[in-house]
């Protein structure tokens, strides 16, 4: 049993005392981030990257991963208790979660979210362990044409995540690809789009761009609303769900986990899309459909299971192929490169302890999260009482320190300023940033594989269609594009994202 030996290796690594500590720190921070509205996992991971410099690669990845899936747990707390999504993937949880809280059932709602998440986390961990290895075997046969087509699929499916107009999302992808090309051309050494700035020869710092758009931009958006009133926090009486509740949680947990696991693996998928789809599926199939929107426990369990499963399985393409399926994974790739590890199919061969240790730590982290989120719920509730006038200057300070230390240059902080300003106005113009950021990361890789593929084929673009895997992937991309552009789907996308704001 190859898998068992590997998992044994993984748990051996993950149960190492220092790794347990960093796993705990990661999920703890993740919960904090998830609970606090206006601070997402992306900005946090970017801010905290300097904290991981002194760590071993395994320790740092375990911690960063913990922040990501931990934030999925924490986000539900705020969603249920104050009707605010602590982070975007919990947006749908507010619908039924807050209604349950208003009816005095905040405790069972929180329990449903945590138990659903734990179930999903356990299944997703096994899934990652089972699928990652065969996928890397496939990935090792990939040539430049396949990589190019795979990235096209990723970019196109990121549109499904963006709300609003399809053409704008496509334009944002192109913009991201273009800006991502900034720096020295790897083949000829020619500087591109550097505007004579010496610092831009190495390209624009991705961490700085991410912090600018998701940290600074988000704060300015929050400053738009003038309401300084403290949110009303629902009271928690008893945490225990009734036997009837437990029975009603089984189906949604399983369906949510299945949906989340599948959508998480898709490039462009991940936690956010998973939770929306799971909620809508549950609403359509449930016997208690009438209760949805008025405090149905299914409406809490399914999206929470889905977003946690999605957060975890989105590690699969990153670990197996070296391609980020979403923006957080793009940052994880940056963190790996900083640690001297090249993400891709060779990680599992060259760094098995990191690969399996990370997977095993996810399950341990999920177990820790249940303990953190249920008995310690009072602690997180008090965190919600921190007023925003303290929160946002602190976020600015963390962002500046984080970005400055990652690159050790003031230039990166100016990058935050500029991308924050541009990002804010683009969001105001209904241009979603996620496709831009994904394009930004994939730009150089996409060009490199395009050039290599064309060299191999002797300048014949037919290579992308005639190679079966590449052609199949491009077909998937084309079908996706047709699906998301159909008017009915477009309207449904709008409906789904209405709650997002």
């Amino acid at each position: 049993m190859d898998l068992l030996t590997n998992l044994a290796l993984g748990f051996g690594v993950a149960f190492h005392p220092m790794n347990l500590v960093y796993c705990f720190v990661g999920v703890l921070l993740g919960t904090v981030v998830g609970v606090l509205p206006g601070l997402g996992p992306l900005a946090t991971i970017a801010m905290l990257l300097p904290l991981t410099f002194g760590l071993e690669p395994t320790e740092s990845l375990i911690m960063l991963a913990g922040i990501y899936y931990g934030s999925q747990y924490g986000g539900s707390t705020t969603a249920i208790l104050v009707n605010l999504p602590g982070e975007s993937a919990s947006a749908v949880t507010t619908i039924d979660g807050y209604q349950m809280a208003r009816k005095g059932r905040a405790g069972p709602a929180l329990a449903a979210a945590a138990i659903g998440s734990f179930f999903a986390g356990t299944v997703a961990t096994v899934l990652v362990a089972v699928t990652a290895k065969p996928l890397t075997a496939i990935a090792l046969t990939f040539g430049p044409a396949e990589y190019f087509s795979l990235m096209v699929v990723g970019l196109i499916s990121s549109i499904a995540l963006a709300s609003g107009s399809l053409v704008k999302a496509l334009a944002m992808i192109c913009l991201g690809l273009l800006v991502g090309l900034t720096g020295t051309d790897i083949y000829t050494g020619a500087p591109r789009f550097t505007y004579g700035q010496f610092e831009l020869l190495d390209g624009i710092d991705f961490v700085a761009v991410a912090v600018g758009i998701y940290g600074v931009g988000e704060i300015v958006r929050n400053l738009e609303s003038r309401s300084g009133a403290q949110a009303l926090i629902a009271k928690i009486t008893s945490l225990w769900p009734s036997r009837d509740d437990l029975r009603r949680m089984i189906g949604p947990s399983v369906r949510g986990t299945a949906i989340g696991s599948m959508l998480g693996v898709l490039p462009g998928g991940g936690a956010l899309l998973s939770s929306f789809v799971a909620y809508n599926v549950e609403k359509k199939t449930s016997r208690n459909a009438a209760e949805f929107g008025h405090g149905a426990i299914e409406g809490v369990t399914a999206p929470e299971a889905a977003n946690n499963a999605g957060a975890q399985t989105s590690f699969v393409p990153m670990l197996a192929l070296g391609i980020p399926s979403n923006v957080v994974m793009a940052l994880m790739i940056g963190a790996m490169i900083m640690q001297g590890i090249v993400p891709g199919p060779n990680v599992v061969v060259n760094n098995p302890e990191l690969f399996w240790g990370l997977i095993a730590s996810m399950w341990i982290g999920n177990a820790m999260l249940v303990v953190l989120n249920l008995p310690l719920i009072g602690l997180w509730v008090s965190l919600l009482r921190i007023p925003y006038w303290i929160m946002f200057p602190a976020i600015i300070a963390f962002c500046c320190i984080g970005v400055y230390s990652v690159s050790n240059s003031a230039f990166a902080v100016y990058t935050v300023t500029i991308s924050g300003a541009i990002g804010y106005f683009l969001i105001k113009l209904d241009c979603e940033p996620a496709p831009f950021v994904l394009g930004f990361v994939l730009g150089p890789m996409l060009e490199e594989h395009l050039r290599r593929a064309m060299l191999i084929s002797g300048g014949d673009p037919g290579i992308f269609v005639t190679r079966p895997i590449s052609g199949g992937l491009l077909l998937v991309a084309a079908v996706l594009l047709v699906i998301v552009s159909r008017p009915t789907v477009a309207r449904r996308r709008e409906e789904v994202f209405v709650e997002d704001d």
Partner: protein
Amino acid sequence: MLINKKDGAAGLFFVAVGLLYGGIAWSTLPFGSALRMGPGYFPIVLSGILVVLGAVIFGRSFFSGPGMPFGIVPWRGLLMILLATVIFAAFIDDLGMIPGLFVTTLVATLARPQTTIGRALGASIGITAFCTLVFSFAVRLPIPVVGPVFDGLR
């Protein structure tokens, strides 16, 4: 007569960026051929697509209806937040962690008009102390606690 201002502005923005990047790539970077792509090939193709998409968005703005309002821009908040990051970038090396962060956070607190001076000072002092403890003493980032500007005072 623009009908959808958001679409119009976004379209113009994409066209402008596409023309700018396409222009730079066209004039300074070799295009190459499909077989041996030069550094200008991919950027020029992308810029072309961006210009077309921008034009489509701009064109549609005449037909897509008024749409949602642009909403207010919190100019003071935006400027103060951006100014705070600029101050940090410009002065952190010279001022060091404690003074540099204090000024940065103080400017940031001013982004919210309702925050009183007392609260602003309190928040800035608290955040500076917290960050100095965490980043200078616990994580030991190589930013000086007090910068070289203050060397004369010792």
